[in-house]
């Protein structure tokens, strides 16, 4: 075994060890990446499987906003107001976190990823006061806990969304 081969093997083994913590930790794609705060009621699933939402929520929202404003299609599945109603939960002091605070569902990830969003320049960043009770009491997604196999293949929906 030459010195070059040996060092390459050492590197591979070292690489494996380095990768292990990331594989073992299922909180995110990389160890140390913050997980968005839990939604109002963890028993309710999201409107799409979580992994899909993590990757494609921006496309769904973009698609939905144009449909809603320009055509008046007001379905609730990808409505930003409904996201906020469900995902923005009170801080320990009972106040709702604003966008920009680390407890805010959207901020918790967007600050880490350094992705600037303008949604809350205009849209309300806390739940609809009239719907706070409602979203705590019942599932806005009609009792669906969606998994990947319940919904159409990803490619189909994303194709639609673009």
């Amino acid at each position, binding site marked *: 075994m030459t010195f070059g081969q040996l060092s390459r093997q050492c590197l591979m083994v070292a690489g494996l060890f380095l990768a292990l913590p990331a594989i073992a930790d299922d909180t995110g794609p990389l160890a140390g990446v913050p997980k968005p705060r839990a939604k109002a009621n963890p028993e309710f699933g999201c409107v799409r499987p979580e992994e899909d939402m993590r990757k494609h929520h921006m496309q769904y929202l973009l698609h939905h906003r144009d449909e809603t*404003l320009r*055509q*008046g299609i007001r*379905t609730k599945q990808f409505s930003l107001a409904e996201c906020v109603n469900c995902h923005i939960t009170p801080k320990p002091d009972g106040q709702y976190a*604003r966008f920009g605070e680390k407890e805010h569902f959207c901020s918790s990830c967007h600050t880490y990823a350094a992705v600037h969003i303008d949604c809350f320049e205009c849209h309300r*960043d806390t739940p*609809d006061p009239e719907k706070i009770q409602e979203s705590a009491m019942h599932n806005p997604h009609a009792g669906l806990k969606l998994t990947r196999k319940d919904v159409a293949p990803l490619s189909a929906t994303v194709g639609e969304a673009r």
Partner: protein
Amino acid sequence: MDKKTNPTDQARRRFFGQVAAVASLTVAPGIILQQVAHARAPELPASDRQRWGILINTNKCAEGCDACVTACQDEFGWGPDSPNEKHSAPNQKAQWIRKVKLTDKQTGHVQTLPLMCQHCEHPPCVDVCPTGASMKRADGIVLVDKHICIGCRYCMMACPYKARSFVHEELHDQKVNAPRGKGTVEACTLCVQRVDAGRQPACVEACPEQAMIFGDLKDPESAISRELRERGGEQIRADLGLNTGIRYQGL
């Protein structure tokens, strides 16, 4: 199947149409069904089979009453009670709907009327918008797509009714139905979120004198069309040929 409607089908349709008409008239004696609920399913887009409009009877509009204006403020969160807009001057603040008072100098006759976006068929604001943010929906409602509005305010210049406002300050705690933000232009939306849900605009609902009739201008049997047919209605600045959706009586 043959795409042409066959004569039997047409006869059947006429028959059912007549049955429905008779049925709707005889629901109960003395009760006239004024308005049929026109709520669309949420997944259906607005269609050009409708054109929404408001007919305002200025003779019924009471001087000193601003119920329509406050209803609009409550619905959309603009106005003096807006907690965020503290620094801008009064003439910079949003004004989605305003009460206008007209005095005849010769006779001293005073009229008041609410003035807001007139929801033109040929809106000048849409013509001048450089980004396509100013737009008209299929059902005739003129809106600003704030997602792509760059705040250039050409539309404000173009509007003959001074119907549009610019937001000068950072806002928070907006109403859920009314996303509003600094650097964008806004105006009356004909309460589009209410209309989509089959309800009436807030101002129409709030008017204590029932001076406003909301409805579909393309439906000859709607209350607004019947009233326009029987008693007429004027457009403000009809000379511009904009064919406004808001009409006035008694001007």
